[in-house]
């Protein structure tokens, strides 16, 4: 295969690294530092351009963009004629470049964080043995995990096969046709690949993050990907990918050992591991993650993740702030009180629920869902809605969300 770069069967995108290089060398007269995600190829081209220019870039869906357009006579491309390997080598030396992203935010509005090139690519492995890797992209390309897959593949000049948003049948045919060797996805993505009706011998690495996969599901997946190594990773928009585990025991690499500590069963990360953000609270140089862990060994440090301290609800790998959803539901005049909470679910890890108190019976479940769907991404819309006479509070006067 001649240096395949990107396949997206839904959008009909089929580009080689040669095509990419040609496109990067096209003259461009205007460069905007805010990218609107419409087409995954255009997104990557603009991202790479920002790296070449060493300019800060923002994904438009983050909503707090201050747009700035730069106009050129032609695109200043210092590497013209040097080939893509030279490009990539130089891209690695970017110092001013930053990518602005939004985190889901524990209270109120999303926070913005800035990632530098080193912080985004800290865990990217580059070597000659990776030359033939083929990556199945199973995350939204503009989210942290999707960016990690992009950089891992791009810096090794590997092919990226976009599996995000495809049906199970389409995913199967993509894995087969393009000989996907590496997949990184949420547990929900893998659950939806079952039942294991096919076997993919060429897949070497299966990575999942967030919640645990049950032993039964894991066994079934191992039947489907018999030659794959299974790895669990801890990653967040604030910190990127940090630790890995083969089961649910996380170990800390020598490199970042002194930047991680556990305080009262809570994970603290040193600020040098964290994206730069005025909105994140740093205490004496440490970021308190809100992730509760159970230490199984202190020397060397090993632990399991137990729960989140704050109220964020994890729906199939995407974080939902219940306060944000409650505020929207309360915009309906007929609603007097509401509680949004998560319930354990075998498919999504957690399913989002809402108990709603109505003034009169004037709203239906369908109407509330339609109202929210216009304003929120799908995963933030409660799927189980119950109309109740009153919302019960905990002894401290808070809404119990469990």
């Amino acid at each position, binding site marked *: 295969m001649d240096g395949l770069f990107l396949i997206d069967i839904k959008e009909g995108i089929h580009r080689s690294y040669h095509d990419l290089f040609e496109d990067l060398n096209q003259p461009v007269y205007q460069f905007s530092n805010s990218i609107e995600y419409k087409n995954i190829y255009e997104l990557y081209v603009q991202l790479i351009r920002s790296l070449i220019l060493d300019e800060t870039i923002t994904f438009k869906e983050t909503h707090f963009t201050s747009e700035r357009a730069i106009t050129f006579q032609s695109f200043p491309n210092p590497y013209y004629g040097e080939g893509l390997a030279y490009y990539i080598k130089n891209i690695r030396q970017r110092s001013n470049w930053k990518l602005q992203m939004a985190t889901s935010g524990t209270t109120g509005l999303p926070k913005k964080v800035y990632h530098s090139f080193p912080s985004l690519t800290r865990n990217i492995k580059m070597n000659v043995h990776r030359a033939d890797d083929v990556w199945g992209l199973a995350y939204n390309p503009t989210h942290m995990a999707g960016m990690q897959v992009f950089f891992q593949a791009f810096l090794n000049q590997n092919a990226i096969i976009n599996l995000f948003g495809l049906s199970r049948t389409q995913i199967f045919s993509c894995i087969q046709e393009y000989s996907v060797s590496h997949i990184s996805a949420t547990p929900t993505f893998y659950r939806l690949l079952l039942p294991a009706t096919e076997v993919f011998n060429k897949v070497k690495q299966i990575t999942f993050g967030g919640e645990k996969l049950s032993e*039964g599901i894991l066994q*079934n997946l191992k039947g489907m990907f018999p030659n794959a190594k299974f790895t669990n990773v801890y990653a967040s928009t604030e910190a990127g990918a940090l630790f890995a585990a083969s089961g649910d025991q996380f170990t800390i690499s020598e490199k970042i050992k002194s930047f991680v500590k556990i305080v009262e069963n809570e994970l603290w990360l040193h600020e040098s591991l964290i994206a730069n953000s005025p909105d994140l609270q740093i205490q004496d140089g440490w970021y308190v993650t809100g992730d509760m862990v159970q230490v199984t060994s202190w020397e060397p440090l090993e632990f399991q993740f137990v729960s989140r301290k704050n109220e964020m609800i994890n729906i199939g790998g995407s974080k939902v702030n219940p306060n944000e959803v409650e505020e929207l539901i309360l915009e309906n005049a007929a609603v007097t009180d509401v509680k949004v909470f998560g319930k354990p*679910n*075998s498919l999504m890890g957690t*399913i989002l629920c809402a108990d709603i108190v109505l003034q009169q019976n004037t709203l239906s479940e*369908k109407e509330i*869902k339609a109202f929210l769907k216009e304003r929120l991404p799908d995963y933030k819309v409660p799927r*189980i809605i119950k109309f109740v006479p009153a919302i019960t509070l905990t002894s401290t006067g808070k809404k119990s969300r469990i």
Partner: protein
Amino acid sequence: MDKIISIINRVLENNNKSYSGTITETTSLRNDIGFDSLDLAELTVNIEEEYGVDIFENGFVETVGDIMKKTSK
């Protein structure tokens, strides 16, 4: 079967979706009806409320017939 179909229809209706075909035992929840992962999670909760069975516990549900097998045990 009728009860399961009415639960499926309720999930479709609540989420402003529709399926014009006839639902039979071989109808695929994902490929035919077009349920996404969130729809399936909602369906699971509704089936569990009715039958007390978590159909996705071991991740093996593809068709309407699969649900019938799980709920008749």
